[in-house]
Protein backbone atom coordinates (compact mmCIF):
# COMPACT_ATOMS: atom_id res chain seq x y z
CA UNK A 1 0.00 0.00 0.00
CA UNK A 2 1.20 3.51 -0.75
CA UNK A 3 2.70 4.93 2.45
CA UNK A 4 2.25 8.62 3.15
CA UNK A 5 3.49 10.52 6.19
CA UNK A 6 0.61 11.27 8.54
CA UNK A 7 -1.54 8.22 7.74
CA UNK A 8 -3.08 6.47 10.71
CA UNK A 9 -0.87 3.56 11.82
CA UNK A 10 -3.69 1.16 12.46
CA UNK A 11 -5.67 1.90 9.33
CA UNK A 12 -6.36 -1.76 8.62
CA UNK A 13 -7.66 -2.31 12.14
CA UNK A 14 -9.79 0.83 11.91
CA UNK A 15 -11.32 -0.34 8.63
CA UNK A 16 -12.30 -3.61 10.33
CA UNK A 17 -14.40 -1.59 12.79
CA UNK A 18 -16.71 -0.56 9.93
CA UNK A 19 -18.74 -3.56 8.78
CA UNK A 20 -20.01 -1.88 5.62
CA UNK A 21 -16.50 -1.46 4.19
CA UNK A 22 -16.57 -5.20 3.51
CA UNK A 23 -19.68 -4.81 1.42
CA UNK A 24 -19.42 -5.97 -2.17
CA UNK A 25 -21.38 -4.32 -4.96
CA UNK A 26 -21.81 -4.98 -8.69
CA UNK A 27 -20.67 -8.59 -8.82
CA UNK A 28 -18.12 -8.80 -6.11
CA UNK A 29 -16.38 -5.45 -6.18
CA UNK A 30 -15.39 -4.30 -2.71
CA UNK A 31 -17.00 -0.89 -2.17
CA UNK A 32 -14.77 2.20 -2.32
CA UNK A 33 -16.77 4.66 -0.25
CA UNK A 34 -15.80 8.22 -1.11
CA UNK A 35 -19.06 9.91 -0.17
CA UNK A 36 -18.15 10.82 3.39
CA UNK A 37 -19.17 14.46 3.12
CA UNK A 38 -22.72 13.23 2.56
CA UNK A 39 -22.63 10.83 5.47
CA UNK A 40 -20.05 8.70 7.23
CA UNK A 41 -20.15 5.00 7.90
CA UNK A 42 -20.61 3.68 11.45
CA UNK A 43 -18.18 1.61 13.47
CA UNK A 44 -19.22 -1.54 15.30
CA UNK A 45 -18.66 0.32 18.59
CA UNK A 46 -21.48 2.75 17.81
CA UNK A 47 -23.84 0.00 16.66
CA UNK A 48 -23.09 -1.92 19.84
CA UNK A 49 -23.90 1.14 21.95
CA UNK A 50 -27.25 1.43 20.18
CA UNK A 51 -28.08 -2.22 20.73
CA UNK A 52 -27.00 -2.10 24.35
CA UNK A 53 -29.19 0.93 24.90
CA UNK A 54 -32.29 -0.66 23.40
CA UNK A 55 -31.70 -4.14 24.83
CA UNK A 56 -30.93 -3.12 28.40
CA UNK A 57 -31.71 0.49 29.26
CA UNK A 58 -34.43 1.86 27.00
CA UNK A 59 -36.92 4.20 28.72
CA UNK A 60 -38.10 7.73 28.34
CA UNK A 61 -35.75 10.22 29.96
CA UNK A 62 -36.18 12.71 32.82
CA UNK A 63 -38.73 12.62 35.61
CA UNK A 64 -38.75 8.82 35.84
CA UNK A 65 -38.22 7.17 39.21
CA UNK A 66 -37.70 3.63 37.89
CA UNK A 67 -34.33 2.03 37.15
CA UNK A 68 -34.61 2.09 33.38
CA UNK A 69 -35.66 5.73 33.32
CA UNK A 70 -32.72 6.62 35.53
CA UNK A 71 -30.29 4.66 33.41
CA UNK A 72 -31.63 6.11 30.16
CA UNK A 73 -31.43 9.62 31.60
CA UNK A 74 -27.86 9.06 32.78
CA UNK A 75 -26.88 7.75 29.35
CA UNK A 76 -28.58 10.60 27.52
CA UNK A 77 -27.18 13.29 29.77
CA UNK A 78 -23.83 11.51 29.74
CA UNK A 79 -23.79 11.94 25.97
CA UNK A 80 -24.27 15.66 26.51
CA UNK A 81 -21.19 15.67 28.75
CA UNK A 82 -19.23 13.92 26.02
CA UNK A 83 -20.28 16.43 23.37
CA UNK A 84 -19.44 19.31 25.71
CA UNK A 85 -15.95 17.93 26.28
CA UNK A 86 -15.49 17.18 22.56
CA UNK A 87 -16.06 20.81 21.56
CA UNK A 88 -14.53 22.26 24.74
CA UNK A 89 -17.79 23.94 25.79
CA UNK A 90 -17.53 25.97 29.00
CA UNK A 91 -20.72 24.32 30.24
CA UNK A 92 -22.65 21.16 29.43
CA UNK A 93 -25.84 23.21 29.53
CA UNK A 94 -24.74 24.90 26.33
CA UNK A 95 -25.17 21.71 24.32
CA UNK A 96 -28.58 21.32 22.68
CA UNK A 97 -29.52 18.10 20.93
CA UNK A 98 -31.44 18.54 17.66
CA UNK A 99 -32.29 16.15 14.85
CA UNK A 100 -29.59 17.36 12.46
CA UNK A 101 -27.48 20.41 11.61
CA UNK A 102 -30.33 21.82 9.56
CA UNK A 103 -32.59 21.95 12.61
CA UNK A 104 -29.75 23.52 14.60
CA UNK A 105 -29.42 26.33 12.06
CA UNK A 106 -33.18 26.82 11.80
CA UNK A 107 -33.29 26.97 15.58
CA UNK A 108 -30.85 29.88 15.61
CA UNK A 109 -32.75 31.71 12.86
CA UNK A 110 -36.07 31.25 14.64
CA UNK A 111 -34.76 32.26 18.06
CA UNK A 112 -33.49 35.51 16.58
CA UNK A 113 -36.76 36.12 14.74
CA UNK A 114 -38.78 35.85 17.96
CA UNK A 115 -36.20 37.40 20.29
CA UNK A 116 -36.51 40.69 22.09
CA UNK A 117 -33.95 43.40 21.67
CA UNK A 118 -30.99 43.47 21.36
CA UNK A 119 -31.11 40.19 19.42
CA UNK A 120 -34.28 40.63 17.41
CA UNK A 121 -33.94 40.40 13.63
CA UNK A 122 -36.47 42.73 12.01
CA UNK A 123 -36.91 44.97 9.01
CA UNK A 124 -34.23 47.44 10.09
CA UNK A 125 -31.57 44.80 10.38
CA UNK A 126 -29.33 42.68 8.20
CA UNK A 127 -28.34 39.04 8.05
CA UNK A 128 -25.01 37.99 6.54
CA UNK A 129 -24.15 34.62 5.02
CA UNK A 130 -21.81 33.54 2.20
CA UNK A 131 -22.18 32.25 -1.31
CA UNK A 132 -20.63 28.90 -0.36
CA UNK A 133 -23.21 27.92 2.23
CA UNK A 134 -25.04 24.62 2.26
CA UNK A 135 -28.74 25.14 1.52
CA UNK A 136 -29.34 24.44 5.21
CA UNK A 137 -27.50 27.65 6.01
CA UNK A 138 -29.21 29.64 3.24
CA UNK A 139 -32.89 28.79 3.25
CA UNK A 140 -33.49 29.37 7.01
CA UNK A 141 -32.09 32.88 6.59
CA UNK A 142 -34.07 33.52 3.42
CA UNK A 143 -37.21 32.48 5.29
CA UNK A 144 -36.28 34.68 8.23
CA UNK A 145 -35.59 37.62 5.93
CA UNK A 146 -38.91 37.14 4.12
CA UNK A 147 -40.83 36.84 7.35
CA UNK A 148 -39.23 39.74 9.21
CA UNK A 149 -38.32 42.08 6.37
CA UNK A 150 -34.64 41.90 7.25
CA UNK A 151 -32.11 42.20 4.45
CA UNK A 152 -30.04 39.16 3.48
CA UNK A 153 -26.46 39.89 2.38
CA UNK A 154 -23.56 37.60 1.58
CA UNK A 155 -19.88 37.31 0.88
CA UNK A 156 -18.98 36.29 -2.67
CA UNK A 157 -16.27 33.85 -3.73
CA UNK A 158 -12.91 34.26 -5.40
CA UNK A 159 -12.06 32.33 -8.55
CA UNK A 160 -9.99 29.86 -6.60
CA UNK A 161 -12.85 28.94 -4.29
CA UNK A 162 -12.21 31.10 -1.25
CA UNK A 163 -14.35 33.68 0.51
CA UNK A 164 -13.94 37.16 -0.87
CA UNK A 165 -13.65 39.23 2.29
CA UNK A 166 -12.27 42.32 0.53
CA UNK A 167 -15.52 44.21 1.19
CA UNK A 168 -16.04 42.89 4.73
CA UNK A 169 -16.73 46.35 6.14
CA UNK A 170 -19.54 46.94 3.67
CA UNK A 171 -21.04 43.49 4.09
CA UNK A 172 -20.98 43.40 7.89
CA UNK A 173 -22.29 46.73 9.17
CA UNK A 174 -23.85 48.28 12.24
CA UNK A 175 -27.16 46.88 11.01
CA UNK A 176 -25.94 43.31 10.99
CA UNK A 177 -27.52 41.16 13.69
CA UNK A 178 -26.10 37.80 12.72
CA UNK A 179 -23.31 36.44 10.55
CA UNK A 180 -23.68 32.75 9.74
CA UNK A 181 -21.06 30.91 7.73
CA UNK A 182 -19.61 27.52 7.07
CA UNK A 183 -16.30 26.54 8.67
CA UNK A 184 -15.43 24.03 5.95
CA UNK A 185 -17.41 24.01 2.73
CA UNK A 186 -18.99 20.69 1.80
CA UNK A 187 -18.67 21.41 -1.93
CA UNK A 188 -15.43 23.38 -2.27
CA UNK A 189 -13.59 21.93 0.69
CA UNK A 190 -12.49 25.46 1.63
CA UNK A 191 -11.56 26.01 5.28
CA UNK A 192 -12.69 29.56 6.05
CA UNK A 193 -10.83 32.16 8.13
CA UNK A 194 -12.93 32.50 11.25
CA UNK A 195 -10.95 35.11 13.11
CA UNK A 196 -11.31 37.92 10.61
CA UNK A 197 -15.08 37.45 10.38
CA UNK A 198 -15.56 37.14 14.13
CA UNK A 199 -13.48 40.25 14.74
CA UNK A 200 -15.58 42.34 12.39
CA UNK A 201 -18.85 40.90 13.71
CA UNK A 202 -17.86 41.70 17.28
CA UNK A 203 -16.92 45.21 16.22
CA UNK A 204 -20.49 45.88 15.13
CA UNK A 205 -22.10 43.77 17.85
CA UNK A 206 -23.41 41.05 15.56
CA UNK A 207 -23.77 37.45 16.66
CA UNK A 208 -21.80 34.75 14.85
CA UNK A 209 -23.07 31.30 13.94
CA UNK A 210 -20.65 28.73 12.55
CA UNK A 211 -21.81 25.74 10.52
CA UNK A 212 -19.24 23.17 11.56
CA UNK A 213 -20.95 20.18 9.92
CA UNK A 214 -17.88 19.39 7.82
CA UNK A 215 -15.40 20.31 10.54
CA UNK A 216 -16.56 18.50 13.67
CA UNK A 217 -16.04 15.04 12.12
CA UNK A 218 -12.56 15.78 10.88
CA UNK A 219 -10.51 17.91 13.26
CA UNK A 220 -10.37 19.17 16.83
CA UNK A 221 -13.19 21.66 17.36
CA UNK A 222 -12.93 24.20 20.17
CA UNK A 223 -15.93 26.48 20.43
CA UNK A 224 -14.12 28.80 22.81
CA UNK A 225 -11.19 29.22 20.44
CA UNK A 226 -13.59 29.85 17.53
CA UNK A 227 -15.08 32.79 19.35
CA UNK A 228 -18.50 32.23 17.81
CA UNK A 229 -21.84 32.48 19.59
CA UNK A 230 -23.42 29.39 18.02
CA UNK A 231 -21.88 26.30 16.46
CA UNK A 232 -23.96 23.70 14.60
CA UNK A 233 -23.04 20.21 13.48
CA UNK A 234 -24.63 16.87 12.69
CA UNK A 235 -24.05 13.38 14.03
CA UNK A 236 -24.39 11.22 10.95
CA UNK A 237 -21.27 12.71 9.34
CA UNK A 238 -19.12 11.80 12.37
CA UNK A 239 -19.73 8.07 12.81
CA UNK A 240 -22.94 8.60 14.78
CA UNK A 241 -26.48 7.51 13.90
CA UNK A 242 -28.78 9.54 11.69
CA UNK A 243 -31.37 11.60 13.56
CA UNK A 244 -29.09 13.59 15.86
CA UNK A 245 -27.56 17.04 15.55
CA UNK A 246 -26.03 19.53 17.94
CA UNK A 247 -26.32 23.21 18.52
CA UNK A 248 -23.83 24.72 20.89
CA UNK A 249 -24.70 28.23 22.07
CA UNK A 250 -23.29 30.65 24.61
CA UNK A 251 -25.09 30.29 27.92
CA UNK A 252 -26.17 33.93 28.34
CA UNK A 253 -27.71 33.83 24.89
CA UNK A 254 -29.53 30.60 25.51
CA UNK A 255 -30.90 32.08 28.69
CA UNK A 256 -32.13 35.23 26.96
CA UNK A 257 -33.46 33.80 23.73
CA UNK A 258 -37.00 32.47 23.37
CA UNK A 259 -37.85 28.82 22.73
CA UNK A 260 -38.57 27.46 19.28
CA UNK A 261 -40.52 24.20 19.47
CA UNK A 262 -42.97 23.87 22.36
CA UNK A 263 -43.92 20.69 24.16
CA UNK A 264 -43.03 18.13 26.77
CA UNK A 265 -39.60 18.36 28.42
CA UNK A 266 -39.03 22.02 27.52
CA UNK A 267 -41.34 23.48 30.14
CA UNK A 268 -41.04 24.44 33.76
CA UNK A 269 -44.73 24.68 34.48
CA UNK A 270 -47.81 24.64 32.25
CA UNK A 271 -51.32 25.85 32.79
CA UNK A 272 -53.94 26.40 30.12
CA UNK A 273 -53.33 30.14 30.38
CA UNK A 274 -49.57 30.26 30.23
CA UNK A 275 -46.38 28.36 30.57
CA UNK A 276 -42.86 28.96 31.74
CA UNK A 277 -39.84 27.25 30.28
CA UNK A 278 -37.10 25.09 31.65
CA UNK A 279 -33.56 26.44 31.64
CA UNK A 280 -31.35 25.68 28.61
CA UNK A 281 -30.63 23.22 27.14
CA UNK A 282 -34.03 21.71 27.91
CA UNK A 283 -35.86 24.84 26.82
CA UNK A 284 -34.84 23.96 23.28
CA UNK A 285 -35.53 20.23 23.39
CA UNK A 286 -39.27 19.76 23.00
CA UNK A 287 -40.67 16.26 23.15
CA UNK A 288 -38.95 12.95 23.62
CA UNK A 289 -35.41 13.61 22.43
CA UNK A 290 -33.41 11.35 20.11
CA UNK A 291 -32.23 9.36 23.12
CA UNK A 292 -30.60 6.37 21.48
CA UNK A 293 -29.11 8.62 18.82
CA UNK A 294 -27.51 10.84 21.46
CA UNK A 295 -26.10 7.74 23.12
CA UNK A 296 -24.78 6.69 19.71
CA UNK A 297 -23.23 10.11 19.21
CA UNK A 298 -21.54 9.75 22.60
CA UNK A 299 -20.13 6.40 21.50
CA UNK A 300 -18.95 7.92 18.22
CA UNK A 301 -17.19 10.69 20.11
CA UNK A 302 -15.50 8.09 22.32
CA UNK A 303 -14.45 6.20 19.23
CA UNK A 304 -13.02 9.25 17.46
CA UNK A 305 -11.39 10.61 20.61
CA UNK A 306 -9.71 7.29 21.34
CA UNK A 307 -8.03 7.49 17.96
CA UNK A 308 -7.46 11.21 18.42
CA UNK A 309 -8.89 14.07 16.40
CA UNK A 310 -5.40 15.44 15.69
CA UNK A 311 -4.37 12.13 14.19
CA UNK A 312 -7.57 11.84 12.19
CA UNK A 313 -6.99 15.30 10.82
CA UNK A 314 -3.39 14.48 9.87
CA UNK A 315 -4.54 11.30 8.17
CA UNK A 316 -7.13 13.09 6.10
CA UNK A 317 -4.71 15.84 5.20
CA UNK A 318 -2.26 13.25 3.92
CA UNK A 319 -5.00 11.57 1.88
CA UNK A 320 -6.29 14.88 0.57
CA UNK A 321 -2.85 16.08 -0.44
CA UNK A 322 -2.25 12.82 -2.25
CA UNK A 323 -5.66 12.98 -3.91
CA UNK A 324 -5.18 16.56 -5.12
CA UNK A 325 -1.78 15.62 -6.52
CA UNK A 326 -3.13 12.61 -8.36
CA UNK A 327 -6.36 14.23 -9.56
CA UNK A 328 -4.74 17.21 -11.20
CA UNK A 329 -2.81 14.75 -13.34
CA UNK A 330 -6.06 13.47 -14.86
CA UNK A 331 -6.51 15.14 -18.26
CA UNK A 332 -9.44 17.57 -18.50
CA UNK A 333 -10.04 17.40 -14.75
CA UNK A 334 -10.72 20.77 -13.13
CA UNK A 335 -10.92 21.10 -9.36
CA UNK A 336 -13.73 23.37 -8.22
CA UNK A 337 -12.36 24.90 -5.04
CA UNK A 338 -8.83 25.26 -3.72
CA UNK A 339 -6.55 23.18 -5.92
CA UNK A 340 -4.03 22.70 -3.13
CA UNK A 341 -4.20 20.84 0.16
CA UNK A 342 -3.80 23.97 2.27
CA UNK A 343 -6.69 25.27 4.35
CA UNK A 344 -9.06 22.73 2.95
CA UNK A 345 -11.05 19.80 4.16
CA UNK A 346 -11.28 16.31 2.77
CA UNK A 347 -13.94 16.94 0.13
CA UNK A 348 -12.76 17.56 -3.43
CA UNK A 349 -15.17 18.65 -6.16
CA UNK A 350 -14.24 18.55 -9.82
CA UNK A 351 -15.50 18.48 -13.38
CA UNK A 352 -14.14 16.17 -16.04
CA UNK A 353 -14.15 17.82 -19.46
CA UNK A 354 -17.64 17.85 -20.91
CA UNK A 355 -18.68 14.65 -19.29
CA UNK A 356 -21.69 15.29 -17.12
CA UNK A 357 -21.14 14.51 -13.43
CA UNK A 358 -24.10 12.12 -13.50
CA UNK A 359 -22.28 10.05 -16.05
CA UNK A 360 -19.03 10.26 -14.14
CA UNK A 361 -20.74 9.10 -10.97
CA UNK A 362 -22.62 6.31 -12.68
CA UNK A 363 -19.59 4.83 -14.40
CA UNK A 364 -17.57 5.10 -11.19
CA UNK A 365 -20.39 3.32 -9.39
CA UNK A 366 -20.22 0.47 -11.88
CA UNK A 367 -16.64 0.04 -10.69
CA UNK A 368 -17.75 0.03 -7.05
CA UNK A 369 -16.62 3.60 -6.36
CA UNK A 370 -19.19 5.69 -4.50
CA UNK A 371 -18.89 9.45 -5.05
CA UNK A 372 -21.58 12.11 -5.00
CA UNK A 373 -22.60 14.14 -8.06
CA UNK A 374 -24.83 17.17 -8.33
CA UNK A 375 -24.89 20.54 -6.64
CA UNK A 376 -24.30 19.07 -3.17
CA UNK A 377 -26.99 21.29 -1.64
CA UNK A 378 -24.85 24.31 -2.53
CA UNK A 379 -26.34 25.33 -5.86
CA UNK A 380 -25.17 28.98 -5.64
CA UNK A 381 -21.60 27.67 -5.87
CA UNK A 382 -22.42 25.92 -9.15
CA UNK A 383 -24.06 29.09 -10.44
CA UNK A 384 -21.02 31.09 -9.37
CA UNK A 385 -18.65 28.87 -11.34
CA UNK A 386 -21.00 28.43 -14.27
CA UNK A 387 -21.29 24.66 -14.02
CA UNK A 388 -24.39 22.52 -13.71
CA UNK A 389 -22.91 20.21 -11.11
CA UNK A 390 -19.71 18.62 -9.86
CA UNK A 391 -18.42 15.19 -8.98
CA UNK A 392 -17.23 15.10 -5.38
CA UNK A 393 -14.92 12.63 -3.68
CA UNK A 394 -14.70 12.99 0.08
CA UNK A 395 -12.55 11.13 2.57
CA UNK A 396 -12.60 10.08 6.19
CA UNK A 397 -10.44 8.36 8.77
CA UNK A 398 -10.83 4.99 7.05
CA UNK A 399 -9.90 6.24 3.57
CA UNK A 400 -6.73 4.81 2.02
CA UNK A 401 -4.29 5.90 -0.68
CA UNK A 402 -5.37 2.78 -2.57
CA UNK A 403 -8.89 4.18 -2.70
CA UNK A 404 -7.53 7.39 -4.20
CA UNK A 405 -5.73 5.27 -6.79
CA UNK A 406 -8.95 3.42 -7.53
CA UNK A 407 -10.71 6.74 -8.06
CA UNK A 408 -8.05 7.97 -10.46
CA UNK A 409 -8.14 4.69 -12.41
CA UNK A 410 -11.90 4.89 -12.42
CA UNK A 411 -11.79 8.37 -13.89
CA UNK A 412 -9.49 7.13 -16.65
CA UNK A 413 -12.08 4.52 -17.44
CA UNK A 414 -14.81 7.18 -17.48
CA UNK A 415 -12.81 9.23 -19.96
CA UNK A 416 -12.27 6.29 -22.23
CA UNK A 417 -15.89 5.27 -22.01
CA UNK A 418 -17.24 8.63 -23.11
CA UNK A 419 -14.15 9.61 -25.09
Amino acid at each position, binding site marked *: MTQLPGLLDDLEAIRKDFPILDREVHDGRKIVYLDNAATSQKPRQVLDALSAYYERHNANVHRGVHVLAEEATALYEGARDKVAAFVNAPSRDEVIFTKNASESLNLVANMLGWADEPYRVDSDTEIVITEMEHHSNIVPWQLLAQRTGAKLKWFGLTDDGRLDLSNIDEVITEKTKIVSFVLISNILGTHNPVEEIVRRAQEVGALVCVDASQAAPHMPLDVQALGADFVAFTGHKMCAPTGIGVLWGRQELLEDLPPFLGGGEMIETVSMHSSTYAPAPHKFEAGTPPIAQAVGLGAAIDYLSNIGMEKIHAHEQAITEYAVKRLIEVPDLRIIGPATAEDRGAAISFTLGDI*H*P*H*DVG*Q*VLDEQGIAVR*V*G*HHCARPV*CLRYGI*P*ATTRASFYLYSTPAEVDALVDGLEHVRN*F*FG
Partner: protein
Amino acid sequence: MYQDVILDHYKNPHGRGLRDGDAEVHHVNPTCGDEITLRVKYDGTTVTDVSYEGQGCSISQASASVLNELLVGKELDEARRIQETFLELMQSKGKIEPDDAMEEVLEDAVAFAGVSKYPARVKCALLSWMAWKDATAQALDAGEKETA
Protein backbone atom coordinates in the same frame (compact mmCIF):
# COMPACT_ATOMS: atom_id res chain seq x y z
CA MET B 1 -27.26 1.00 -18.41
CA TYR B 2 -25.02 2.61 -21.02
CA GLN B 3 -26.16 0.61 -24.04
CA ASP B 4 -24.21 1.27 -27.22
CA VAL B 5 -27.36 2.72 -28.75
CA ILE B 6 -27.47 5.32 -25.97
CA LEU B 7 -23.81 6.22 -26.31
CA ASP B 8 -24.22 6.53 -30.09
CA HIS B 9 -27.11 8.94 -29.71
CA TYR B 10 -25.16 10.86 -27.06
CA LYS B 11 -22.12 11.25 -29.30
CA ASN B 12 -24.04 11.83 -32.52
CA PRO B 13 -27.34 13.44 -31.59
CA HIS B 14 -30.16 13.56 -34.13
CA GLY B 15 -31.82 16.85 -34.96
CA ARG B 16 -30.06 18.86 -32.30
CA GLY B 17 -30.31 22.66 -32.56
CA LEU B 18 -33.25 25.01 -32.44
CA ARG B 19 -35.32 25.52 -35.56
CA ASP B 20 -38.58 27.21 -36.31
CA GLY B 21 -41.55 25.83 -34.30
CA ASP B 22 -45.17 26.32 -33.20
CA ALA B 23 -44.35 26.27 -29.50
CA GLU B 24 -41.28 26.32 -27.29
CA VAL B 25 -40.77 25.12 -23.72
CA HIS B 26 -37.86 25.15 -21.29
CA HIS B 27 -37.65 22.29 -18.79
CA VAL B 28 -35.22 21.79 -15.94
CA ASN B 29 -34.46 18.79 -13.79
CA PRO B 30 -33.74 20.59 -10.54
CA THR B 31 -32.02 17.69 -8.83
CA CYS B 32 -29.19 17.52 -11.36
CA GLY B 33 -29.40 20.73 -13.35
CA ASP B 34 -30.20 19.10 -16.70
CA GLU B 35 -31.93 21.60 -18.98
CA ILE B 36 -33.64 21.48 -22.31
CA THR B 37 -35.22 24.03 -24.62
CA LEU B 38 -37.49 22.26 -27.06
CA ARG B 39 -39.65 23.35 -30.00
CA VAL B 40 -42.33 21.40 -31.83
CA LYS B 41 -43.69 21.99 -35.29
CA TYR B 42 -46.92 20.54 -36.60
CA ASP B 43 -48.48 20.33 -40.01
CA GLY B 44 -52.08 19.57 -39.14
CA THR B 45 -51.66 16.49 -36.95
CA THR B 46 -48.27 15.48 -38.27
CA VAL B 47 -45.14 16.08 -36.18
CA THR B 48 -42.97 17.80 -38.74
CA ASP B 49 -40.12 18.76 -36.42
CA VAL B 50 -38.84 18.55 -32.86
CA SER B 51 -35.81 20.74 -32.38
CA TYR B 52 -33.93 21.18 -29.12
CA GLU B 53 -30.91 22.47 -27.35
CA GLY B 54 -29.74 21.79 -23.81
CA GLN B 55 -27.16 20.51 -21.45
CA GLY B 56 -27.16 17.44 -19.37
CA CYS B 57 -25.93 13.95 -18.90
CA SER B 58 -25.63 11.34 -21.62
CA ILE B 59 -28.99 9.88 -20.70
CA SER B 60 -30.94 13.10 -21.10
CA GLN B 61 -29.05 14.03 -24.27
CA ALA B 62 -29.41 10.64 -25.88
CA SER B 63 -33.04 10.49 -24.93
CA ALA B 64 -33.76 13.78 -26.73
CA SER B 65 -32.00 12.47 -29.80
CA VAL B 66 -34.01 9.24 -29.77
CA LEU B 67 -37.18 11.28 -29.34
CA ASN B 68 -36.38 13.34 -32.40
CA GLU B 69 -35.65 10.25 -34.47
CA LEU B 70 -38.78 8.49 -33.30
CA LEU B 71 -41.43 11.19 -33.34
CA VAL B 72 -40.63 13.36 -36.34
CA GLY B 73 -42.87 12.40 -39.21
CA LYS B 74 -45.39 10.59 -37.03
CA GLU B 75 -49.07 11.32 -36.68
CA LEU B 76 -49.93 12.91 -33.32
CA ASP B 77 -51.86 9.86 -32.05
CA GLU B 78 -49.02 7.56 -32.88
CA ALA B 79 -46.48 9.96 -31.30
CA ARG B 80 -48.54 10.06 -28.13
CA ARG B 81 -48.71 6.29 -28.00
CA ILE B 82 -44.93 6.16 -28.26
CA GLN B 83 -44.53 8.77 -25.52
CA GLU B 84 -46.85 6.86 -23.21
CA THR B 85 -45.14 3.57 -23.85
CA PHE B 86 -41.78 5.16 -23.11
CA LEU B 87 -43.13 6.66 -19.91
CA GLU B 88 -44.48 3.29 -18.84
CA LEU B 89 -41.15 1.63 -19.53
CA MET B 90 -39.21 4.27 -17.60
CA GLN B 91 -41.47 4.02 -14.59
CA SER B 92 -41.24 0.25 -14.44
CA LYS B 93 -38.28 0.18 -12.03
CA GLY B 94 -36.59 -2.36 -14.26
CA LYS B 95 -39.55 -4.70 -14.06
CA ILE B 96 -40.62 -4.51 -17.71
CA GLU B 97 -38.56 -6.65 -20.07
CA PRO B 98 -39.44 -5.08 -23.44
CA ASP B 99 -41.13 -7.63 -25.71
CA ASP B 100 -41.33 -7.57 -29.51
CA ALA B 101 -44.47 -5.47 -29.52
CA MET B 102 -42.86 -2.84 -27.35
CA GLU B 103 -39.72 -2.91 -29.41
CA GLU B 104 -41.75 -2.25 -32.51
CA VAL B 105 -43.21 0.88 -30.92
CA LEU B 106 -40.09 2.18 -29.21
CA GLU B 107 -37.33 1.10 -31.61
CA ASP B 108 -34.01 2.53 -30.29
CA ALA B 109 -35.75 3.80 -27.16
CA VAL B 110 -35.97 0.27 -25.71
CA ALA B 111 -32.29 0.69 -24.93
CA PHE B 112 -33.40 2.84 -21.99
CA ALA B 113 -35.03 -0.14 -20.27
CA GLY B 114 -31.93 -0.53 -18.10
CA VAL B 115 -32.08 3.10 -16.99
CA SER B 116 -35.45 2.48 -15.36
CA LYS B 117 -33.65 0.54 -12.63
CA TYR B 118 -31.91 3.72 -11.50
CA PRO B 119 -34.47 6.02 -9.88
CA ALA B 120 -31.99 8.92 -9.87
CA ARG B 121 -31.66 8.71 -13.66
CA VAL B 122 -35.26 8.15 -14.74
CA LYS B 123 -35.91 11.88 -14.61
CA CYS B 124 -32.97 12.47 -16.95
CA ALA B 125 -34.39 10.06 -19.50
CA LEU B 126 -37.84 11.62 -19.29
CA LEU B 127 -36.79 15.27 -19.45
CA SER B 128 -37.19 15.75 -23.21
CA TRP B 129 -40.29 13.58 -23.37
CA MET B 130 -42.06 15.65 -20.76
CA ALA B 131 -40.95 18.79 -22.55
CA TRP B 132 -42.34 17.43 -25.82
CA LYS B 133 -45.68 16.62 -24.20
CA ASP B 134 -45.87 20.10 -22.74
CA ALA B 135 -44.84 21.84 -25.97
CA THR B 136 -47.33 19.80 -27.98
CA ALA B 137 -50.16 20.76 -25.64
CA GLN B 138 -49.20 24.42 -26.07
CA ALA B 139 -48.96 24.13 -29.86
CA LEU B 140 -52.40 22.53 -30.03
CA ASP B 141 -53.89 25.15 -27.72
CA ALA B 142 -52.44 27.90 -29.89
CA GLY B 143 -53.69 26.14 -33.01
CA GLU B 144 -57.20 25.93 -31.60
CA LYS B 145 -57.22 29.59 -30.66
CA GLU B 146 -56.19 30.52 -34.19
CA THR B 147 -58.93 28.37 -35.66
CA ALA B 148 -61.50 29.78 -33.24
